[in-house]
């Protein structure tokens, strides 16, 4: 079992310049075997949270609970957790084998033979058997990474803690290790708390994401929930690349239909959208993801006429940077569209794809509708789980 609970965790650092609240009343419950990613910009408190869970920092307030027992006051070695560090932190004076054996020697009473065979099994699983007698400085970055992982895995802990373990690898290796790490975690079924600032890692690896900012939990949900139904403007802007476009708008109810007015356009609202935002003041932020922006004709309702500033053709898609009201916004258009810089482009924001946030609090008042399971199942080539089973019989 590895049910981990972070209860009302607060960590305040005392500095000459005053107190710094690194983690503010954080509450997260992690089920056994889940891979949870803590994600957020630098200084958001994600690493501090991980270190509090590991026992390397003592929380100012709150509890860390593992399988129903508070471990807050226990030393790191008593917590049955293993950590993979950003810098790998392999002991330079020990061979890979000694690095992997070290934790078992220090923390358990296992006989030497048992330790040896466990290290060798783990090394084989990770494909590093031939590296066991080498010292860390004889290994490449990727190999060091694997040894560091091996050192954590061989302990067979209840919880893995990973502090940006892939950030020192080159892009290609990072993608490869990401998949391997995910597969490994699923095979081992060990509860994992994973810290990263890379939202691609967060989206692709996690069962659930905890998005943090300024020490506060912004949202805790599955990757797609965070993407499609962000709870606030911060999450909406942080998850997704290129990030969501935001327009500062004011509500105008004087015309025939209520509308959101931006300096570059007027956006008439349908009733259901208006119902969601009614009574929340006059100032809002209209959000739309780049890939949800569609090309339109000038006479369509809510069409916005813009100027193309820069295009970035990536082949599969083209990022088009548009100027609307003196600010730059991004649209992701099909890759085979050739759009010259400086030309005028008319676009529209489909009403079922927009997000509206409270202009004061940033809280999401309206999110785009989620992709429908039924729509997916009706796609040609898609087989539901029932039909797969039927096919196998």
């Amino acid at each position, binding site marked *: 079992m590895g049910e981990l609970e972070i209860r009302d965790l607060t960590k305040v650092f005392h500095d000459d310049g005053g107190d710094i609240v690194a983690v503010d009343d954080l509450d997260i419950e992690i089920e056994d075997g889940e891979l949870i990613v803590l994600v957020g910009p630098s200084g958001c408190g994600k690493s501090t949270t991980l270190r509090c869970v590991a026992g390397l920092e003592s929380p100012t307030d709150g509890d860390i609970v593992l399988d129903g027992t508070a471990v807050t006051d226990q030393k790191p070695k008593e917590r049955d957790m*293993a*950590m993979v560090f950003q810098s790998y932190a*392999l*002991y330079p*004076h020990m061979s890979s084998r000694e690095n992997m054996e070290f934790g078992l020697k*220090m923390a358990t009473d296992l006989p030497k033979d048992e330790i040896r065979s466990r290290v060798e099994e783990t090394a084989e699983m990770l494909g590093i058997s031939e590296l066991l007698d080498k010292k860390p400085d004889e290994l490449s970055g990727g190999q060091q990474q694997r040894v560091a992982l091996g050192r954590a895995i061989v302990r067979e802990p209840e919880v893995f803690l990973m502090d940006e373990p892939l950030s020192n690898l080159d892009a290609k290796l990072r993608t490869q290790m990401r998949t391997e790490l995910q597969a490994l975690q699923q095979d081992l079924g060990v509860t994992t708390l994973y810290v990263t600032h890379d939202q691609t890692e967060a989206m692709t690896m996690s069962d659930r994401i905890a998005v943090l900012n300024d020490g506060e939990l912004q949202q805790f949900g599955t990757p797609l929930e965070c993407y499609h139904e962000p709870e606030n403007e911060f999450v909406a802007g942080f998850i997704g690349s290129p990030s969501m476009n935001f327009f500062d708008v004011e509500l105008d109810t004087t015309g025939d239909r209520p509308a959101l007015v931006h300096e570059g356009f007027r956006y008439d609202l349908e009733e259901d959208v208006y119902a969601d935002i009614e009574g929340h003041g006059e100032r809002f932020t209209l959000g739309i993801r780049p890939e949800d922006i569609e090309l339109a004709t000038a006479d369509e309702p809510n069409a916005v006429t813009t100027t193309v500033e820069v295009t970035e053709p990536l082949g599969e898609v083209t990022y088009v940077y548009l100027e609307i009201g003196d600010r730059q916004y991004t649209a992701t258009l099909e890759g085979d569209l050739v759009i010259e810089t400086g030309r005028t482009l008319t676009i529209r924001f489909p009403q079922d794809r927009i997000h509206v946030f409270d202009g004061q609090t940033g809280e999401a008042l309206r999110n785009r509708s989620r992709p429908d399971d039924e729509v997916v199942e009706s796609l040609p080539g898609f087989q539901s789980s029932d039909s797969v089973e039927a096919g196998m019989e």
Partner: protein
Amino acid sequence: MATSTDPEDRNLSQRIDAWLDEDMSPRRAIGVYLVLGLYFAFLLLPVVYMVLASFTSQSFLFSPELVPALGDLTLANYETVLSRGDFRTYFYNSMIVATSTTLLVLTVGILAGYSMSRFDYPGRGGLLYAFLSTQMLPIVLILIPFYILMFSLNLVDSLLGIVIAHSVIGIPLGTWLLKGYIDDIPESLDEAAKMDGCSHLSVLRRVIVPLAMPGIAVAGFYTFILSWNDYLLVSVLSQTAGTRTLPFGLQLFQSQNAVAWNLLITAAVITMAPVILLFAVAQRWVVEGLASGGMKGN
């Protein structure tokens, strides 16, 4: 089939090319080595002459020849010097004092350096500067109050008193040096060790000390030499022959009217030998440098 990259298979000029830096022309290399050779000859010739002279007689020393013939070499000087009981006592005293001082300084220095590097506590900064400030005053300045203090502690004319006196000088610098080395060891290694089940002391023993070996070797070597070579403090604290150390041994071979140069030189060689031996042993760690292969991104 062997290729030209096999070291066995390369001819001499290729090997010299590989040995020389690619950017360095042979002419430049010869120039650099010539200058270095002259420099070291200047430094080492007197030492070499001293060692040679210790194997010759007094009469040879005053002859116009510089290099003795093989037949002129003798071990008689060593026999004479080492057969003197007082010289042997001084030698043992020096060994005891220098070794004990080194062990004491390293023990205190490692613990203090680790604590100053890793823990934050009130007065830590002040303590560091206090340590540094002890190096700013010449020893002579504190000699009399120090003597009075040692006298009141009943430590005058004892080897323990000399060890403490040498440690007083050695500990501040040793601690500074070791703190600097330990600062360079990434803290994530301490944390990894704690996650692996180590206490503070076992982190120190199993991770910090092995990695700080170059620093420990330098601090130990420095302390040993400091204690081994000290004349001033011993001259004040030692009152009888039983507590004198080797620098005093050199005095045994000169009187008011005559100096037994061959014996003096031999005693000097014997005095020098342990330090050179110690360096030969410690050099491996000093040169090795801090291995940092296991760390990325720091």
